[in-house]
């Protein structure tokens, strides 16, 4: 069966699934939809998912991408899981602050810090 090219790099670190984006610019709506579907599959594959989304190498992020992150956060919460974000460029972090999404997400400076925070 033909599959769409993945937009994510996924690795397991202990019981945490760490996700990074392949694209520097997360702007394209079709790609954002694919990213959402891929992350949803990861969440559904684990009874209490521990998910770390690293934004290393990401330069631009649209509000549609923020919307997908919120949906991911809601799904992780429904599954009694844990979600952490890390490695967010200062300019993109400002977008989180302006939208007050820094209050919704648990954001760490580095992936290593985020990994230590899982319970």
């Amino acid at each position, binding site marked *: 069966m033909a599959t769409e090219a993945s937009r994510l790099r996924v690795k397991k670190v202990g019981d945490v699934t760490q996700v990074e984006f392949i694209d520097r610019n997360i702007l394209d709506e079709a790609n954002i939809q694919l990213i959402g579907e891929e992350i949803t599959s990861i969440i559904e594959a684990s009874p209490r998912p521990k998910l770390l989304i690293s934004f290393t190498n990401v330069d631009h992020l649209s509000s*549609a991408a923020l*919307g997908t992150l919120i949906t991911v956060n*809601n799904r992780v919460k429904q599954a009694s899981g844990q979600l952490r974000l890390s490695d967010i460029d200062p300019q993109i972090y400002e977008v989180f602050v302006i939208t007050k999404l820094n209050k919704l997400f648990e954001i760490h400076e580095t992936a290593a810090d985020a990994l230590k925070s899982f319970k």
Partner: protein
Amino acid sequence: MNPRDQTTQDSGRVEISHQRDQIDGAVKVVLEALTRHGYTESSRFAVRLALEEGLANAFRHGHKGMAAHETVLLEWSVGPADLTLTIEDRGPGFDPAAVPDPTLDANLELPSGRGLMLMKAYMTSVTFNPKGNRVTMKYAKPPAKAGKK
């Protein structure tokens, strides 16, 4: 245009269809104009974000229910001190005052509604025509910080 010429206005208009390569092409042309006029990386980030959000709103909301081939008109005018971007869709328009504030606690977990607020946050001004199908965004180049070019 002479790439070192920062004194004249850089302007243009283009019809864009809802395809990534066309959006990327238009954004690239506008950002190149910013570079020619000495805007910083921070300004380029702000303008790119507002332009992407404005175009996304035009296609996603303005053209909702319309044929996919319908185009959006982008006009830009970039000068050494400020710039103006106008995006006009072919839809029925909307009331920007009716868009809920996505930063309220009650709306924080809603997955949509942040594009317009980001445009307003990053641009100097964002205004709509009475019909609500044309947005005009203005951005004033911030004064250069000491120690920076």
